[in-house]
């Protein structure tokens, strides 16, 4: 059974066909890289998988379960987590509160209007644990507004990991990071256990190629090339549309 099965997915915005008949399969535990030039429809594909956009046709299955019609806010409960290309966090709150919200999202406690959230020991401990995993436990109480861009990237990843996903979707996790910060994130991703399947969009080939086992190349909303890292890099079409040399 595949972790993620996308079949014949289509999405148009008016006359613009952003996703045309995309089909691919990701095996459990796999590290998949999705590449493609700007406007290839990579982020749209992610938004279709997470349900933020509804496909015109086609289907999506998560570990064998058809989720095409499952509302987007139910999908995290089925084990899907994502990060955003443009960092999307809660700017007025502390790092700890950001991660707590991620944890809270999957528990029925999120509907409780009566208890004090800060006094929920278990929640607080889990949040600290999630921050330890990304090396931010020391600054857990710091307001998000006083953190660096690289730290915010790690908070994004910590929030996704805190939800214990089976499928993790990373949208350009290295974008905008310095060389040192890139190394931090690279090492962090390497520590994620194999029971998490990862699909990543990334432009930064140095770090991304090393990470990926299989690569899917999108171009104008279609899968042009798919295969192992070596196959895709060697393919002349990859050079033509993407690597450009």
């Amino acid at each position, binding site marked *: 059974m595949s972790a993620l099965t996308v079949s014949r997915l289509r999405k148009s915005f008016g006359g613009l066909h952003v996703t045309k008949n995309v089909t691919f399969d990701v095996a459990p535990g796999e590290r998949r890289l999705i590449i493609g030039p700007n406007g290839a429809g990579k982020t749209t594909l992610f938004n279709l998988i997470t349900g933020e956009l509804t496909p015109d046709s086609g289907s999506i299955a998560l570990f064998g379960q058809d989720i095409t019609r499952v509302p987007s806010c139910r999908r995290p409960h089925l084990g899907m987590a994502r990060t955003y290309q443009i960092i*999307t966090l809660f700017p007025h709150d502390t790092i700890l509160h950001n991660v707590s*919200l991620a944890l809270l999202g999957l528990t029925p406690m999120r509907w409780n209007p009566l208890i004090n959230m800060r006094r929920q020991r278990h929640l607080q401990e889990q949040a600290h644990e999630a921050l330890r995993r990304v090396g931010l436990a020391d600054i857990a109480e710091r307001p998000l507004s006083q953190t660096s861009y690289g730290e915010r990237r790690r908070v994004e990843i910590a929030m996704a990991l805190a*939800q214990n996903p089976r499928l993790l979707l990373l949208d350009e996790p290295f974008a905008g990071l310095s060389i040192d910060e890139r190394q931090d994130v690279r090492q962090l991703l390497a520590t994620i256990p194999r029971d998490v399947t990862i699909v990543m969009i990334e432009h930064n080939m140095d770090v991304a190629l090393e990470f990926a086992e299989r690569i899917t190349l999108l171009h104008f909303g279609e899968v042009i090339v798919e295969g192992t890292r070596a196959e895709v890099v060697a393919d002349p079409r990859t050079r033509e549309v993407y690597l450009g040399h």
Partner: protein
Amino acid sequence: MSRRDVALLLAAVALVTLPYWMSGIYYINVASQILFFAVFALGLNIIAGYGGLVSLGHAALFGISAYVVGYLLQHGVGHAIAILGALLAGLAAMAVYAALALRATGIGFIMITLALGEILWGLAYRWISVTNGDNGINLHGRPQPFGFDINSASGFYYATLIVFVAAVAAVAVFVRSPLGAALMGTRDQPRRMNALGYHVWAIRFWACMFSGLLTSIAGILFVYYTQFISPQTLALTSSAEVLLMVIAGGAGTLLGPIVGAGLVVVVKSVVSGFIERWNFLLGAIFVAIVILMPEGLVPGTARLWRRAWQGKDGAPP
């Protein structure tokens, strides 16, 4: 005891003893008005401040509850049933508001609530067989909750104070709760909240219902206070007034709407006795607040206070 506890204790003592040191029934009545308008503003602040959903039709919800009390009492129903009916009507109206207005956020939400408020105002004005039109409905007497007489100014003040304290406590508990945190999350990053597994629409809906409950309670206190309800109470100017209370005091803070209610009611009822153009003064105060403390009086004063202390000590306290 922290400085905060001392301030709370002093405020509690001042509020409880108010009828003894405040000279004259008139001023005790002003205090009652401040308290029930504060409950109203606290209700609007739930969605406008913590939820980022600004309503310009809340006075109509406030007015519906007041009208239901008046209508039921006129038809010989007891106070308890009238109050219960008013709460249910207020909540039902809020649910309809939410179902229609939550299709949008931002300006869209404001415009839909504005339109709904105007429809209800129009109904109150024109549906004369039920509302008695422009003449309004008069009440005769107040209830006696648990045998406690609230017909006197100080009696009504204490009844209002109890409701006010309960409302403040409820809001204080709510904003620290997971649902409160989720509501603030949907204000700041609705898309992210959805991706984290929160049902953004449902969170906003329940926040609206809480807001509607407080608004309804305030409306019931209002109608028992004035013993009269007319379409004027539902008008857009009333909705704008309560929104100004929230914004002037500080949206998204617990104390802000209370301070805002105090400011508006004092200017409206006390200062208007001395200055004929009190609207002008209120406007000027708001302009000053927006220029000097755009975040509202409470957060703005806290900011200036901190700066003053930092200036003295040379380091943050």
